[in-house]
């Protein structure tokens, strides 16, 4: 078999259904082989960054490994943002890059880039295959590494002569990888955790993307355990959907734009049970004022997440599903009970915080408020259990606040890296994985222009993705920070000219819709979901709206700004008292 044949056979054996890619000189032998078969589908993107985000969307909405194929040099370097995004958000991917023939490596050959060198810090692991007889084993190991432990992106660099050479194939069952991250948690630690949970007076579950990554079983076990205990549960941006958003025990998202009740519960809790979250700075706020009187349990599959930003009292390292299963077993075996009296008092405190109704905004009958647009989108689509992707900025935070996710794998957003331009290609990947489903990219007019070329991909592959653009004429989150922190000097955050999104949609072979008044929003949404084609729906929203609540940089959870009238905006953050937040 040739290297190209070996590669495709290995992909089929790994259960790959679709590749997102873009051909070029160094990968032509692979594309030639792809042409001759019909097991693997290929989505032809318009920019390699989009191929990686599409594979991320595919992976995050299915739990499978996403797969990318691009050429050497610029094809490979264009994947760097996507790979970094996948590393930050722990998304399992395997990215195949073409490379110049081994005899030319290091010669500054045409379209040569040292992509294993470039991507070393932005992949979980990477390989350069120099011998065709190592190819099959390397591909199988790449998939194993991508999906095992804390998932992440793996890159495999394929010199052209290696994919043209003849070699032996070996199946995935022959793989003997030394990479075996632990799965089961230490039972003594789990027993201790159960003890701490039973004694808690003001407990809180703090749930992150690790639960979603662990799989549907982990989310189910988590939901079961949270309901058994009756404890409140808050989710990170990445953890949304890990616990049902409309459950009365859910406090919604926490952190910089989290809810009042979630952040104050975090600040006031005496026991925090962190399941698969990583104490990100957008969640913790100022570290020395973070949950000051709490004991902390941290369940995580990655030992390097433990005690990284926040020292914890008890760590349980392993897969969330296994640990939660054991925890429930121990809880039941011991017939453990929570402190009902204390919990009741805690809930009445939380309900008081809840009654502030922190996500309230002043609606208008003249201007479309972005929050209103998202609320209507939620109300009019929730019965269809849509997949929601987002770009990055205000619209993303409003989506996280006002959309509710009942299930995991229905929310695809760029969390750790904050990549504008993530949403549209990600939605393509989701739609490829779920052909009949309603897939919506909630976007801003600035973010969408970062990968707008992918509208052509939607048209070519007949992917009926809905792009829901909240157009406020500004890079909204930049404008918001400039208003609140930089004295209203809107330096370069205003784009004076925007394309006519309706005409643009039509030029790309999509349907263009526009709403300019609140009264037009419902009709726009109904039409958008009725059309079985890609749609770009532009909503001209209030340009001055800011996203609240907000914990200003360098502030603590109990120093939240609830709205424009809240004067605590003026308090400056301190750099002396812990990590500087930006």
């Amino acid at each position: 078999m040739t290297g190209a044949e070996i590669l495709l056979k290995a992909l089929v054996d790994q259960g790959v259904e679709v590749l997102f890619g873009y051909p070029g000189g160094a990968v032509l032998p692979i594309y030639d082989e792809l042409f001759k078969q019909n097991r693997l589908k290929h989505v032809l993107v318009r920019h390699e960054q989009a191929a990686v985000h599409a594979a991320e969307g595919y992976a995050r909405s299915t739990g499978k490994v996403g797969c990318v194929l691009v050429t050497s040099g610029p094809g490979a370097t264009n994947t760097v943002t996507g790979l970094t995004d996948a590393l930050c958000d722990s998304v399992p991917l395997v990215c195949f890059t073409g490379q110049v023939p081994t005899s030319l490596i290091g010669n500054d050959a045409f379209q040569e880039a040292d992509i294993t060198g470039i991507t070393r810090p932005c992949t979980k692991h990477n390989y350069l295959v120099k011998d065709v007889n190592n190819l099959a084993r390397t591909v199988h190991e790449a998939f194993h590494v991508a999906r095992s432990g804390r998932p992440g992106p793996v890159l495999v660099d394929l010199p052209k002569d290696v994919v043209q050479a003849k070699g032996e194939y070996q199946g995935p069952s022959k793989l003997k990888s030394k990479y075996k991250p632990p799965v089961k948690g230490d039972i003594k630690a789990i027993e201790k955790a159960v003890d701490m949970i039973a004694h808690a007076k003001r407990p809180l579950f703090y749930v992150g993307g690790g639960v979603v990554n662990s799989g549907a079983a982990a989310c189910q076990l988590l939901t079961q355990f949270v309901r058994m205990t009756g404890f409140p549960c808050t989710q990170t941006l990445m953890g949304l959907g890990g616990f049902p958003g409309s459950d009365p025990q859910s406090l919604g998202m926490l952190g910089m734009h989290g809810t009042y009740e979630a952040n104050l519960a975090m600040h006031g809790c005496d026991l925090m049970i962190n399941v698969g979250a990583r104490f990100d700075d957008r969640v913790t706020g100022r570290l020395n004022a973070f949950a000051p009187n709490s004991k902390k349990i941290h369940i995580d599959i990655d030992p390097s997440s433990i005690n990284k930003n926040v020292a914890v009292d008890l760590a349980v390292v392993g897969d969330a599903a296994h640990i939660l299963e054991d925890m429930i077993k121990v809880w039941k075996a011991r017939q453990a009970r929570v402190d009902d009296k204390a919990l009741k008092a805690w809930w009445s405190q939380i309900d008081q915080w809840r009654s502030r109704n922190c996500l309230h905004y002043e609606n208008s009958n003249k201007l479309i408020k972005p929050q209103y647009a998202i609320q209507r989108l939620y109300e009019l689509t929730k019965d269809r259990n849509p997949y929601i992707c987002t770009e990055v900025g205000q619209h993303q935070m409003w989506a996280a606040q006002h959309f509710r996710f009942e299930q995991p794998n229905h929310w695809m957003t760029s969390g750790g890296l904050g990549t504008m331009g993530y949403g549209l290609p990600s939605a393509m990947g989701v739609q490829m994985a779920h052909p009949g489903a309603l897939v919506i990219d909630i976007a801003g007019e600035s973010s969408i222009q970062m990968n707008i070329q992918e509208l052509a991909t939607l048209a070519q592959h007949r992917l009926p993705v809905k792009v829901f653009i909240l157009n406020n004429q500004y890079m909204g989150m930049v404008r918001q920070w400039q208003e609140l922190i930089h004295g209203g000097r809107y330096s370069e955050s205003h784009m004076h000219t925007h394309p006519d999104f309706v005409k643009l949609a039509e030029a790309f072979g999509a349907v263009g819709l526009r709403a300019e008044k609140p009264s037009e929003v419902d009709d726009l949404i109904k039409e958008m979901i009725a059309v079985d084609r890609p749609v770009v729906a532009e909503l001209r929203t209030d340009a001055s709206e800011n996203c609240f609540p907000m914990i200003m940089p360098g502030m603590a959870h109990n120093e939240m700004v609830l709205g424009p009238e809240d004067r605590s905006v003026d308090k400056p953050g301190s750099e002396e008292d812990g990590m500087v937040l930006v």
Partner: protein
Amino acid sequence: MTKHEEIARHTIAVLVDNEAGVLARVIGLFSGRGYNIESLTVAEVDAAEQLSRITIVTSGTRMIIEQIKNQLRRLVPVHKVSDLTIEGPHVSRELALVKVAGTGDKRVESLRIAEIFRARPVDATNDSFVFEVVGATDKVDAFIKLMEPLGLVDVSRTGAVAIARGPNPI
């Protein structure tokens, strides 16, 4: 966490696959995350299993050292990470080649001090010596300092290699 926490020096032994790029992964981890490297040595130690051993001397707070070890363990080609400083007694040695140029009394004095340090001359000309000195890092430091006024012109050091005392492997 306070930033005033005590900073300690640790010697960490790392067993890795001897494959292309593995050293770059380790070094990249240290530079990318802002950790110190005071010295680093690497060589293959098991040809059959294709394993290399890296000895890193680093410093940091307790939390940082813990992070360094966990981050190292996260690398796919890393098999074992052992913090020799806290896992019991260990032996640490470093070799240095020290070139001293000069004539007359200084030349004689350099030879006399070399003898005290059990440093061997491994090259000699009419107006220079190269001494080979082996020992703990402190001893090598001390020897080099003493050579400074005696015509020290060049130094090449291996960095520390270390191993745990007692019968057990890493």
